[in-house]
Each structure stands twice: as structure tokens, then as C-alpha cells.
């Protein structure tokens, strides 16, 4: 599963947001994703890809930033 797919599935499941609304430029806040839901989303990411995230990571503000962060962490794990 790609990072963007995981994000789409999570937001559909938790907020009922359609796929078409989840594009890289969209601010997370505009979708109703507050800091608590970002936490849950990162938790789901950790579970799915078996990657433990550092507490000190900068919180992403947009879908695109979230995807970039997730992709980077997955690449680092593969090294």
C-alpha cells in the first residue's frame, strides 16, 4: 500500500472524506484533521509499515507533507 492510499483509507474511515478531496496541496486542518487525528494517523502508519516514529518529528501541515514524511521514513527503514 502506498502512503497516499493509507492516508485516503484512514480519512475515509474516520472522517468519511472522499478520495477526490485528498490531494497533496490540501491543508490537513481544512479536512478537519486536528492534532489528535494526526497522532492517530501516524499511529496507523506505524502499525501498517512497522516503523516506529520519533516523538520529535515535525507535524505535517498538508497531505503532501504527510506523504513525503511517510515515504522518507519508509525509505530510511529499507536501508
Amino acid at each position, binding site marked *: 500500500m502506498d502512503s497516499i492510499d493509507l492516508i485516503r483509507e484512514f480519512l475515509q474511515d474516520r472522517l468519511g472524506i472522499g478520495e477526490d478531496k485528498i490531494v497533496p496541496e490540501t491543508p490537513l486542518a481544512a479536512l478537519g484533521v486536528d492534532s489528535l487525528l494526526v*497522532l*492517530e494517523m501516524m499511529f496507523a502508519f506505524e502499525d501498517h509499515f512497522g516503523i516506529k516514529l520519533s516523538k520529535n518529528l515535525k507535524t505535517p501541515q498538508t497531505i503532501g507533507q504527510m506523504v513525503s514524511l511517510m515515504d522518507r521514513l519508509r525509505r530510511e527503514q529499507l536501508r
Partner: protein
Amino acid sequence: MERRRVAITGMGLVSPFGGNLADFFQRLLQGESAVRQLRLEDPPRPLALPFVSCPGFTAEATLGKPLAGITDRFAQLGLAAAFAAWEEAGLSRQSDRENREDWGVSWGTALGGTIVYERAYQDFWLRARDRISPLSVIIGMNNATNAHLSIQLGLGGISTTATVACASSAIAIGEAFRRIRRGETPLILTGGSEAPQAYGVLRAWEALRVLADGDETRAATACRPFSRDRDGLVLGEGGAALVLEDWEHALARGARIQGEVIGYGTSSDHFHLVRPEVSGQVRALRAALADARLEPEDIDYINAHGTATLEGDPVEIEALRQVFGDRAQGLAVSGTKSMHGHPLGAAGAIEAIVSVLALREQALPPTAHLVDIDPDCVGVDHLTSARRQAPLRTALSNSFAFGGSNAVLVFRAAAG
């Protein structure tokens, strides 16, 4: 000190019979029991017991996805009941018209987020997961319901939850009543909610040996308050809410007044953690009557605490006999937990609604399955079937909790 009148302008319910108040009350009048057998298959052994569920309620359908996903069942039941009460009161979710900075929430729950915590323990110890949901704290915390209501409705006043076992929501309502009566605030959303059906919680109650027996064939009649053959209480889930409002404030905005809260009395038994004590209940009853400025003969109906425990029922009836004296023989009493079960922290609020509906409809629900009255429980007019009698002016609702906390609320019909 000035005593302002306190109106009830909205009521909402998530009950085993659904959320329609008229239908719920009609079914109580008919003596219909919502008790069914609940079976849980968790390790170490399956558990089967009489229980009252709200099967028609799904959080996602009622509250929508964001809210449903960040709340435990107890808060979901509470939010649904509260939104229904709010709507009945003619209030919108968010408003620019009123200043709500001093409107409050006063909620009650005995156990809070049982299900999220149990899921967390199962994750750790059964599924060997290393971590739990990061939202576990805010989903499970006892004050989740009042927090969400405050946010969703833009309420800036008191935001609190009382946790006092079976008296939680009675105390929440009573404390809200006092604040409005002394002019602190014009409106408080109050009530209670509970979802005790986590396996560990039910096993704990089973171990206390206060639950009624009953298999599939007998579950419906498992809760038999005041009966000679009663054998314990039946737990349940549920949510109930009332909008309490300053009388003048309600009239000014054209709200329909459903009833009135006129008195609240509390006491502590200071006796035993589980066993109730007559003198403590007597003090709470007398305090409520005095607070309402009523005499015993002014009360037309008692909605009893009536949990059907062996110890509790006779103590309550003795307390009523002592307070009401000669009047006790003709005092109409019913234990409606026989039908809606005992939803712990939500019980006071559900029974408050039953009392207000009785006054509004001028009809009294019975104690269901009451055929052979325990000789230790005689001395009052036990309602074994519904009764329509006019005029019904006042009702009194008892909540007597583990730990000895007692709360009694007094209501008056709106036309009064």
C-alpha cells in the same frame, strides 16, 4: 437569597426502546421489559447475564464519523441524548444569537470509558501489542461527554461530570438545578450516560454477587424490585439528558416548558460501602422535601431507586415509611428499573425523565413483574400496573448509591 424557578425545556434519551420519548413512556406504562440475556465469549470463560442494551443505537449513524471515532460508547450515548434534548428545547448547535459563555454542562457517569480501556488491556496482554491508541486517554476520560458537549454547542460555563456510582446523574442534575436557582447561569445541559458492558466490568459486578440471575427464558423478568423472590439488579447501558433553564429565560425565548425542578436533597449514609442505611436515606428525602418547600402530603408519586437487591429495597421502603408516616400507605411508588434496567450513572437522569413524563402525561408507570410483594417492602402503594390519575402535581425520584451517597430530586408538573 433569591430563588429562581428552574424549568425543564428539553429532554432526550437513548433507551433500549429507542429515542422517542412518547414511545418509551408508553412501553413503560404497558410494563414492557427491555431486559435480555447478554452473552460475552471473552476468555477465560463466557459470561451470560440479564442486561439492558440499546441495540438500535449506532454512533456513526447518529453522531457522524468524526465524533463517533473519538468517543467511547458511554459518551456516544450521552451525546446522542444531549443533542436530542437540545433540539427539543428549540436550540441550535451553534448560535450567534445568544451569548452562551455562561451556559454550562453538568453530566454524570459512574464508570466512564470502560470499553476503550478494556480494548487497550486486550491489546497489551492478549494480542501482545506494544502500544495502544494515542487517543485512549481522551476517549476514556470520565469527563469526555461534558467536554464534547461544551465544544459542539459552544458552552462556556461550568463543564463538569459527577462520578458517584448510581447517583451520578441525579447529583449532576441537582447541582445544575442549584446553580440556576441561585442565578449563576440561565441554562445547563445535564444528564448521564453509561456503557458498562466491558467484560472485565461485568465480571467485577458478578463477583460482588448483587446481579440478578436469569437465563434466556427468564431474562425479561430478571429485575423484580420489591418482590419476595427478587434476586438482584440488572445492569444496562443508556443515555439521558435534560435542558434545565431559568424559567424567565425560557419564557423570554418562547421555549416550551416540559416540567419544573423544585427540590434536591442529598446525604451520606456514612455507614457502609455497599449496604444502604435507612437514616441516611431519610435525611436525603427530608432535605429534598424541605428544599422544595413541600410537605409529605404534597407528593403524588415516587420513582424509587428500586434496584431489586435483597438489601436495598426494604431499606428504601422503610425510609419512605418513616418520612411519609400516615401518608405512606397511599403513596404511589414504582421501580422502573424493572423495565429499563440499572444504567448506573445514567439511572438518575433516565428516572428524572420518567418522572417528568409521568407528570406531563398524568400517568404513572408500574413496577413490572410485581406480583408477590416482599413483606419487608409493604407499607406504600406499590403500582403493579399503570395508573392514570389526575391531578398529578409532583414527583420525587430517588438515587441511592454504593458508598452511601444519596440524592433525591423533586419535580412539579409544568402547569403548576
